[in-house]
Structures are given as C-alpha cells and as structure tokens.
C-alpha cells in the first residue's frame, strides 16, 4: 500500500481567490494563490475552512483539479443544493477574498507520472472527474506516455467538465462519455447508467493490469468497482473515492 505522501504538520494557510471560471451550469473552477504551498500530487485533496465574522467556522474537503504550480492551486467546486460551503465558494467569493486551506491530504488515491508503466483507467461519475483531471493534466505536463483511458458518466452534454480541454486530442488519452439522462445527437448508446459493456468496451482488458481510479457518488463507485472486479481486475489495483450527497 502507498507510503506516506503527507508528512509533518499540516498548517492552515491563507488562500486568496485569483480567478474563477465556469465549468458547467453547476460547477466552477477556482484558482487560489496560497503563499508557501508545499506542492501536491495528482489525486490529493485539501480542506477548506470558512470563518464568519462572529467566529463560526466550517470546513469541507475538495479535490485538487490540477497538478502543483508554485503557489497556485485549482479546485473545481460543484454546487450542492442547500449546501453551506459550495454556494459561497462558487458565488459569494470575489477575487482577493481569503479562505483558509490546509493540505495536501491523501496519499493513496494518487497517480505519479513516473510511478509505473501500467496503463491507467479513470472512471468518473459527475464531479468525480476532478481528481482524475489532475492526473490527466499531470500526465500531459510530464509528457508521460502512459496510456490513459477516461470514462466519464454525466447526465447530459451540458454537465461535462473541462470540455474544451478534453476535446483537444492528446496522444495516448482516450475519452469516453456516458450519458445517463439525455444523449447528444448522433450518439448511439442510449442514456443510462454505467454497465458492464461500457467498462468492457472502453476500459482496459484486465490482463493489461491497469491501475484503476474510480471517483464519484457512492452508488456509482460501488457499481464501477464491482464491475471491474467481475471483469477480472485485481481489487488491489482499484482505488476508489466516494462522496455522499451530504458533501458540501
């Protein structure tokens, strides 16, 4: 099992919003400047703490969307209906405003371009794409030749993330979308949830021994991981990150 990617004391740092951009109608990418940021690995997350004037504070965890870039870091935040933190981050925060960030956290659900020659399968449900996108970007930045396949399940074409970037061809990266509610015109697969056929057709054969990263809502991750095991993948090569509807 992965050895520590986090060590020493994790301190809260002041992060100031530099800019933000819309990814889709319910998610924004926020770029923060965090002086003294120690760097991170693709797949890690941070804790974000918000404090009100009267001292009330609350925290949530968010995946890092991009590899380390000096003092800059990017989070993609999906609005959670009735959320306490996400609507403030996506709508209430203006450039220059501070939040506190602590991290990076998590040394297991990570991918390093130099780690292994094994192909990589990324399976994302909705905003589960975020830590997987950091892996795709890390691969590109390192000019790594690791073959990567991304299977992204979204409700409709409007719910995709990083659309322009993923549309640009990258040698060795295959992107497959699955639509659960409505398909774009000309798309032959009917709308529906992830199936054995989807992972069998668009993933890697089990005997290629790929590293599999699965991230999304609990039910999606349960389904994807069980299909991968049924297709013969080694459970030890399947890393998962689940989030419940209560995430903020």
């Amino acid at each position: 099992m992965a050895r520590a990617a986090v060590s020493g004391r994790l301190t809260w740092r002041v992060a100031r919003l530099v800019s933000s951009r819309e990814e889709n109608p319910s998610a924004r990418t926020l770029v923060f400047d965090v002086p003294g940021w120690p760097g991170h690995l693709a797949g890690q997350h941070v804790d974000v703490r918000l404090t009100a004037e009267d001292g009330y504070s609350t925290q949530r965890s968010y995946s890092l969307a991009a590899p380390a870039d000096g003092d800059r870091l990017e989070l993609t935040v999906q609005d959670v209906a009735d959320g306490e933190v996400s609507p403030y981050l996506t709508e209430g925060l203006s450039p220059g405003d501070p939040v506190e960030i602590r991290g990076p956290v998590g040394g297991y659900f990570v991918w390093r371009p130099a780690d292994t020659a094994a192909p990589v399968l990324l399976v994302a449900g909705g905003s589960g794409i975020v830590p997987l996108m950091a892996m795709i970007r890390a691969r590109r930045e390192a000019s790594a030749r690791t073959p990567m396949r991304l299977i992204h399940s979204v409700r409709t074409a409007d719910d995709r993330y990083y659309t322009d970037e993923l549309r640009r061809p990258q040698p060795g990266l295959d992107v497959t979308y699955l639509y659960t509610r409505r398909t774009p015109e000309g798309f032959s697969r009917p709308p529906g949830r992830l199936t054995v056929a989807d992972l069998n057709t668009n993933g890697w054969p089990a005997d290629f021994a790929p590293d599999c990263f699965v991230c999304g809502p609990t039910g999606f991750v349960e389904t994807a991981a069980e299909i991968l095991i049924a297709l013969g993948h080694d459970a030890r090569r399947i890393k998962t990150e689940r989030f419940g509807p209560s995430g903020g």
Partner: protein
Amino acid sequence: MGIVSPGFHGRRRDTAVKLPPGQYLTEDFPVLTAGPTQHVPLEKWEFVITTELGQKHSWSWQDLLALPSETPTVDIHCVTKWSKLGTEWQGVSLDTLLEDVDTAADYALVQAYGGYTTNLPLDDLLDGQAWIVYRYDGDDLRAEHGGPARLLVPHLYFWKSAKWVRGIQLLDQDEPGFWETAGYHDYGDPWREQRYQGD
C-alpha cells in the same frame, strides 16, 4: 479565530447539538472506503485475536452470533467532517471477546478483509468503548458499511472503526495502520480535532 471570509455567514444547523470542532451534521450515511467493497461469505468469515506472543483466539460467524450482544446507540464522527448522531448498532463488546485473552500488550492493530489496517491503544477497545457490530438500524450490516461485521469505536474518528474486520493483532509497540501511514493522526480524537499527523 480563523481568517474571516467576507460575506460568509454559514448555515448553522441544530445549535442545541454540540459537535466536535470542524464537524457538520448529516442525516444520510456516506460511504468512504479506499478500495472496492469487500464481500465476505459468512461461512468463510472468521475473527481472530492474536496476542503479542502469537496465541490465537478465533471465532466463526456462528461463534460470534452465539455471544451475548449489546445494542449501542452512539454518535459517529468521520474525519471528512460529517457527524451522524444516534446511530443504532448491535454486536459483541470487545470486553467479551478479550475476556479470556491473556495479554500484556498496550496496542492493537486492527486488520480487515481486503488488507485495510488501523491502530489504536488497547485501552480504547476496553471498558464498553468498542464492539464488533453486525447489525445497523435494525438490519444486517450492509457490505458497503462494512458488513458482515465491522469494528465500532465511536469515540475516535470513524476510520478507526474498520469495515470488514477480520482480526486484531495485539502489540507491545504501536504500529501505524493504512491511513495513519498516509498522514492521518495516530490516535484520532474528534473532540481534539486530531485529523492529521501533528494535530
């Protein structure tokens, strides 16, 4: 007090409830696991306590069910910030399982099907603080929540309550488990907010 984020007011929920610092209340039951859900057939299930001298004490599924059970109702706190109040479980107290185990060990390394491990002082498993539970909210414990049986140590962050528990290795020296090796706190007291190393 932390740095104030302008215009952030928060949405304080039930103020009558005192939660550990940094936690928020949830009504549902999120699932967090590092790998796929384990499915352990009951006929193969076994729980083994191994002492620091290598003596093994083991229980089959039938053995476990035959032991006197308790029905703790407890609050649980996940390091990912959610807390869930008044969860109802059924299982066997570790006091019962450790009753006839002759040990002078100070530490326990909990082992799970699938390879997960987590460590804690042996004292934290005793005196009515920990159970091997097999029922939740009136039903058999579902696999995604650690069924057929998981450890329940509600006074520590929930990653210590190993799902799919299969045994406990008693040790003279502390030995960090899966998340502890990856930077999480060795002990994990939610009320002292011991999330990560150095907290």
